[in-house]
């Protein structure tokens, strides 16, 4: 082998080449085995109906059928709401959900003795019951019954009313889109907040405080703890009745503010996971910022101090520009990590949360492949997921490039 390299590249260079291959080899090998090869297999599987059940897999016709299922979305107008909305669900069409108040009201009949001595019972629940949500129900291929034959394969992802008409965003696989939206929600909340918080903490622990190493260790310790363990602990903290967080909220506000249902509520489940994720991940970014801060030469601060810059101006015009590259790195990695959201979701809300409010793309891929055994479909979801993350990273990088071009 060495002889081969020496012959090809001659003496020293050949030996370096061999050395480089030896040193890099294990890493390249692992990359090929655990990243590149599975991705190629995933691409291949995504065009089949491969299952875990051992049922024979066949190539789909057309080959992009899985992708079509995942990506098909459309906007349609729904039939008008009838004047008399039923309370029990039809196979297809509008109905009104019974609220608990409505149910309670209907259970209590108000009876009085009529003029002829007979008992007349009535429950005047109309007002109470009209507060129920209007729901458009849609079962299987029953769309023909309401004149929407064309969209028989679609399901409603979300419907809304505009200028008195009812519209719906429909998709062949609404849960994928829900997961995608949840991913964006998570990333848009986590990336800026976590980055800002990490910078703040880094500046804090960079001060010459006594015991600052204790603080650094404290902020960093969640990062080295397994996410699954943290998620289990936080699940208890978020318990609506006995959890520490609600007890603290009530204690601090002298019982004036009631705690939230957190993981049991469709509006608070994702914020709960966001808060916990920021707490867990912020230490990692803090360490990177800390390294960046310590790289800034002290004389820049001295010079700006002599020029009369105050603390804020020093931060704005010395610290921030000098941390530019660190910032880019932190934002890029945090974004990718945010889109990979899975562990905490799967532990804290294994079924995707209330009304699928914490379902994410990775969660959905694993759900399809692992629980529902649809390996082919799950592979297609993963490929779409990689493509989306890739596009977002490329957009971020191109924005960063443009800015550096302006700097010059």
């Amino acid at each position, binding site marked *: 082998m060495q002889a081969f390299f020496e012959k090809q590249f001659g003496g020293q260079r050949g030996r370096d080449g061999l050395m480089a291959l030896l040193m890099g080899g294990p890493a390249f090998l692992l990359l090929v085995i655990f990243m590149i090869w599975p991705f190629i297999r995933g691409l291949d599987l995504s065009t089949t109906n491969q299952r875990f059940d051992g049922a024979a897999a066949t190539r789909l016709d057309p080959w992009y059928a899985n992708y079509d299922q995942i990506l098909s979305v459309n906007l349609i107008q729904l039939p008008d709401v009838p004047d008399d909305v039923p309370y029990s669900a039809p196979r297809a069409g509008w109905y009104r959900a019974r609220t608990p108040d409505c149910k309670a009201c209907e259970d209590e009949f108000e009876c009085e003795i009529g003029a002829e001595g007979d008992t007349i019972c009535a429950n005047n629940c109309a007002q109470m019951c009209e507060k129920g949500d209007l729901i458009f129900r849609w079962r299987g291929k029953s769309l023909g019954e309401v004149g929407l034959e064309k969209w028989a394969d679609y399901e409603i992802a979300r419907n809304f009313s505009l200028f008195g008409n009812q519209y719906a965003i429909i998709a062949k696989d609404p849960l994928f889109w829900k997961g995608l939206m949840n991913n964006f929600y998570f990333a848009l909340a986590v990336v800026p907040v976590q980055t800002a918080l990490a910078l703040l903490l880094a500046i804090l622990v960079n001060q010459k405080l006594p015991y600052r190493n204790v603080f650094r260790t404290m902020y960093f310790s969640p990062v080295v703890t397994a996410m699954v363990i943290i998620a289990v602990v936080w699940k208890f903290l978020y*318990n609506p009745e006995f959890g520490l967080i609600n007890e603290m909220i009530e204690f601090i506000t002298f019982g004036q503010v009631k705690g939230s249902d957190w993981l049991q509520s469709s509006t608070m489940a994702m914020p709960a996971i966001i808060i916990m994720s920021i707490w867990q991940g912020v230490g990692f970014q803090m360490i990177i910022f800390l390294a960046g801060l310590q790289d800034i030469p002290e004389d820049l601060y001295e010079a700006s101090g002599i020029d009369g810059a105050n603390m804020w101006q020093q931060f704005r015009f010395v610290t921030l520009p000098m941390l530019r590259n660190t910032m880019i790195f932190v934002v890029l990695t945090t974004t990718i990590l945010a889109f990979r959201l899975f562990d905490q979701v799967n532990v804290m809300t294994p079924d995707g949360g209330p009304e699928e409010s914490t379902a994410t793309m990775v969660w959905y891929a694993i759900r399809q492949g692992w629980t529902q055994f649809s390996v082919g479909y799950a592979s297609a979801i993963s490929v779409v997921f990689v493509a989306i993350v890739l596009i977002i990273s490329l957009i971020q990088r191109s924005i960063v490039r443009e800015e550096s071009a302006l700097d010059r």
Partner: protein
Amino acid sequence: MKALRLLVLVAIIVAVALPVTVAAQDKQEVSLWFHSGQGSERDALDDQITRFNEASDMYEIVPLEVPEGNYNDQVKAAALAGELPCVLDFDGPNVYNYVFSGDLIPLDAHVSEELLADVLPSIIAQGTVEGQLWSLGQFDSGLGLWANKAMLVEAGVRIPEGLEDTWTLDEFNAALDALAGVVPEDGYVIDFKFTYEGEWYSYAFGPWIRSFGGDTIDKDTMATAEGVLNGPEAVAFGEWFQGLFEKGYATATPVDPDADFNEGRVPLSYAGHWMYNTYKDALGDNLVLIPQPDFGNGAVTGMGSWNWSITSACETPDGAWAFIDWIMQPDNVKQMTDGNGAVPSLISVLEADARYAPGGDLYLYFRQLTEDIAVPRAATAAYPAISTAMSDAINALARGEDVQASLDAAVDTIDSYIETLDQ
């Protein structure tokens, strides 16, 4: 070149020596997977494996314990990867899916008439697919309401004597209302074991939906759940069940429900036989088992439990059978069920057990299993989807999500799975 020569030498030594070492062992290895259930089950099985290995001069059982939470997923993954063990246990209703996938071999060629005659009919029914027997278990399950007798008496709630005078829906509701008056401030009325994951929800609430008049799948065709799991009867169950949470009678976020029952914070606990020993230790004679209520279409309860099968990947089916035959010995069945409180699968063991005799603590389980109250879970290859769908739907109901929409989603999960099976 020197290094190469050394490598070849090592390879030769390994190639020559390895068969010798294997041959020296003399016993054939039989791989086995089992779920890590309760401690008492593990201890009993460990002991039985050890004694089997000591007694057998032909086979050596090599066990591997797999976490229970996603046991089924791991089995399916192993099947796809061709890594299945020789013998494995699994939760009853999965047998239909495994047979459909060709993961198992039938036991008919091995099992003796004598053994078959002693096994509970419910166990045979559960393990039979297409006229062949595929699995056998050491125990069946019992499901009902565990109750704190003193608290029921305090609330003036009637305790049913047997299946004949079980609670009706109205009586059950009245009992819950009455019990709400006696529970301590940090307590609640009924525990539904919301700390469990996975199979529990299908096993426990499928029978209740059935008693309401619905079902988890159309049992005539096994082709759809539409109109059955989301029909008016199932919706009635959903609204009633959700009401228990809205009234604060039950909680979807218990921290330690076992302790809540043991320490008198909750008077009713909907759970299976596996809680018997824990509850009995804590409550003693204050513990009473209440049969399944009649929600309108007769009382219905669950059945079936963990079963043993031989996989199609097994190269030593005789060894695998020798082990299953061994654990089905009356002494071993008794050892297991004494530990975990389950219903022994052998009639001879059942009859000798005072707990299952009339007046015994668990007599109701025996009656539920032998008197047509117990209904097996849906015998379909789509069962894994039913399990997932039920778990999602029951949790959604408990959280207060729209009843119809939650049940519709469950039907979609099941029906789309059936669709992929048909392809």
